[in-house]
């Protein structure tokens, strides 16, 4: 059985450096209401709910269960959770809709990085035997990748600075972005990466509604049809991988059908400037492809939501007619270890 499934609505919070006054569910609720309002659906109308988040950000076990209060989980709902970016929750929801078990799905994800020290928190996702005891932080690992790219002649520091500048310039049109406009390239954080090459640390949430077939047409004037999604992973040992390439992104893109026809837009989840270089190469994006018109992760990188935001931003461009065929990418883990690619299309106007 094949069914066409589309993103029919997207909502996101403003991404802020701190949101002390809000618990996770308090931060999340406005986007849940916003995304439901866009379709006129109520919680009881949703066939499947899937979320993405991480306990390590809050420093608290099973934190996602409390966030369910914002969904309205009574009477009982069909629900699932992934302990990673919400893009992977969307993948799970998409497969659920493909089976025909549900016609609509609510996907949301959120992360509050402000309570902890994010660079340290992220070390806990590394190999616990050989790597985590050294506490190499997320910026350090991205810097190793950036230097490998520079050594390979694929980029240089001024080209990386231009990526950061372009992202923050594009973000001036994105009211939810944390950093926009002229941002100083700054000092080295871990050389060769300067602060301008690194994402801001922020709190935020996002939500998407998926619908199948005719239901999607009822809920959205121009649904963003998901033509394919795939996600792939590489060896966790950094020293095994060629950090200048992203074969997992390339394979995911191929399986998602990204290379069958050119895309006009690409929302890439590249938290560090050098990672955009890697992804552009892996995805064979030409200069005519609009990359990260939202500003991308260099303008706002809410942990566990930034990947879902890429899919949402790509879909929103299709909804409003700014794109006909868009690629959305999400990543997780150090140096682009895991990668998800979705291809979205609007019907001819």
């Amino acid at each position, binding site marked *: 059985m094949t069914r066409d499934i589309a993103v029919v609505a997207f909502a996101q919070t403003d991404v802020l450096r701190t949101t002390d006054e809000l618990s996770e569910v308090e931060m999340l609720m406005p986007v849940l209401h916003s995304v439901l309002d866009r379709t006129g659906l109520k919680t009881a109308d949703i066939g499947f709910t899937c979320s993405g988040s991480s306990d390590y950000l809050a420093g608290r076990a099973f934190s996602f269960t409390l966030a369910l209060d914002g969904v309205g989980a009574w009477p009982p709902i069909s629900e699932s959770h992934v302990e990673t970016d919400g893009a992977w929750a969307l993948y799970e929801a998409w497969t659920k809709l493909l089976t025909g078990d549900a016609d609509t799905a609510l996907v949301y994800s959120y992360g509050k990085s402000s309570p*902890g020290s994010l660079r340290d928190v992220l070390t806990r996702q590394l190999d616990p035997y050989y790597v985590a005891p050294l506490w190499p932080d997320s910026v350090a690992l991205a810097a190793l990748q950036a230097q490998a790219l520079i050594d390979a002649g694929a980029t240089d520091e001024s080209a990386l600075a231009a990526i950061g500048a372009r992202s923050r310039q594009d973000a001036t049109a994105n009211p939810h972005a944390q950093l926009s406009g002229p941002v100083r390239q700054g000092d080295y954080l871990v050389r060769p990466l300067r602060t301008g090459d690194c994402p801001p640390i922020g709190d935020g949430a996002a939500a998407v509604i998926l619908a199948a077939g005719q239901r999607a047409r009822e809920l959205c004037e121009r649904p963003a049809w998901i033509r394919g999604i795939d996600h792939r992973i590489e060896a966790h040992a950094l020293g095994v991988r060629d950090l200048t390439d992203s074969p997992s992104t390339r394979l995911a893109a191929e399986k998602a059908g990204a290379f069958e026809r050119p895309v006009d837009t690409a929302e890439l989840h590249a938290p560090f400037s050098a990672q955009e270089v890697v992804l552009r190469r892996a995805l064979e994006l030409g200069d005519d492809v609009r990359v990260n018109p939202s500003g991308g992760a260099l303008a706002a990188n809410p942990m566990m939501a930034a990947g879902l935001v890429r899919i949402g931003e790509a879909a929103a461009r299709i909804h409003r007619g700014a794109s006909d065929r868009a690629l959305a990418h999400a990543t997780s883990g150090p140096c682009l270890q895991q990668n998800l690619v979705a291809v979205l299309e609007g019907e001819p106007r």
Partner: protein
Amino acid sequence: MSEVLKAPLVVEFPFTRSLGPVQSAFLTGLRERVVLGVRTSDGRTLVPPVEYDPVTADELHDLAEVAPTGTVTTWAWNHAPRRGQPLTTPFAWVLVRLDGADTALLHALDAPGPDAVRTGMRVRIRWAPERTGAVTDIACFEPYDGGPAPLTGRTDGHAGPVTGIVAAARLDYTYSPGRAQSAYIAGLADRRTLGERCPSCRKVYVPPRGACPTCGVPTADQVEVGPRGTVTTFCIVNIKAKNLDIEVPYVYAHIALDGAGLALHGRIGGIPYDQVRMGLRVEPVWTQDARYPDHYRPTGEPDAEYDTYKELL
């Protein structure tokens, strides 16, 4: 709106991990100043060694020694070392392909500055003076001008192999419970119990979390509940918890405070454990300087009718 509370929260855990044969051999080797890799069926040598080939997924066990010298494959200058990192002075993160290996190991390089580091430079292991069988037995790398150092010829037979590691971790947070729970906690400081009413279903949640889980809408209307309440259900605890200064058996109960839309938990005191019953009317007992009631005791009122609390079970 009352002030949002904040407090430090430290999460610490000594993860105790057992090792498989390959990891055990590698970490035992480090303790003995021997670096072991593992050979794949197509002749590559992986260092650090893994138990399964990342390409073929074949199980690997063919250990081979590599030199403690090698070549930097990429690097990054860390001018501000963070807690737990190998060196406290500025250093370079490096991936090093040891002589004889086909993959690279992540570690720190002690060098005077970024100008002294480049991809392709030669380095050697500086061993930690005291070694326990952990990746930190390599204190760091240091610059080295020369060819591959000789091998020791040892690959096994070490006395007392390392079979596990303790991976200590500590993360520091500044935790804030958010608006609704802050107001609840601030109320308790005045010995008042504050709930929040759902604007849709009118249920009063206590403690409030800022959302009605039934309706999925924010709750904002603050309502003081109690102090008296009704036992809706209970259990008798017969096993003493560690560090808990309460005699067993005792009763732990669900208590619906007057005006609350759901029950909260509390211990029942001031009455023999076997006389506690559903419908018992109770009130909180505060001890000096306490931030929450120590326990609840009978008020002496007649028991509540079942119909008055059956929806709160």
